[in-house]
């Protein structure tokens, strides 16, 4: 019986470790991808605005930050 308990616990531990590792890696990859998206937005925003203003001099903006985030004063 004691041997069975140890085996069961070991099994639970390994499943737990696998789940946490997979979840942790997924979250880490998601966060990294999100950071890359923000960098891309930051890089392209000025160029897009500049080109669009040439066509529409009175172009209005959503007033998000260049990274596409909510401004502090709007929170």
């Amino acid at each position: 019986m004691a041997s069975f308990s140890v085996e069961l616990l070991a099994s639970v531990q390994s499943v737990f470790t696998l789940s946490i590792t997979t979840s942790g890696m997924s979250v880490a990859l998601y966060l990294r991808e999100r950071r890359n998206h923000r960098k891309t937005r930051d890089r392209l925003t000025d160029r897009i605005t500049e080109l669009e203003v040439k066509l529409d001099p009175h172009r209005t903006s959503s007033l998000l930050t260049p990274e596409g985030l909510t401004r502090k004063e709007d929170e």
Partner: protein
Amino acid sequence: MGVEHLSLAIQSLLCLVLLAVLFLELWPALRLDTFRQGMFTVRDELFDYAASGAIPFDDPAYRLLRQLMNGLIRYGHQITFFRLWCTFMRLRLSRSGLDDRWSAKWEVALGRIRDLKVRDDLCGFHSRASELVAARIVYGSPALLLLLIVLFTTIIVRRGLQNLKHALTDAVAAGASLAVDQRLLEDKAAKLAA
């Protein structure tokens, strides 16, 4: 308490912390980004539409629609069922009535457009923006999600399994309109973006 029990308790606690981070921080941030991304797409397409010469950039209808989208993008984080419901209740209690100035201006501006195709196209952009807002409101509220399931099932039963995507879109729109008055949201968004 044995070592095994303590170990399991720590593991459970760790899982709960991770779940809390996922549901309270990462998931809402992803939903907001998705909403804004969708609204930016519609706004960009509207810009391209005007750039093609279909409508002047200084046309009031174009400017109003863009102003609305800017407001929705900027204050997308505040578009939740709870907040809208509170605003709606505040208006009802203060008996100040619904402020639908944006909707009135939009109707006038649309009426001035003579080309029916352009008018339809602009209404299409407006509908797409409204659908994004409806989806954000409905998918962000467990109560409305439940209502959505009921509406979706009803629509499917009535129409049969012909077009699931349309049934879902209709259910989302119906759920959102049951929950909040769209004119209230549009006027607030446009006012904030002005």
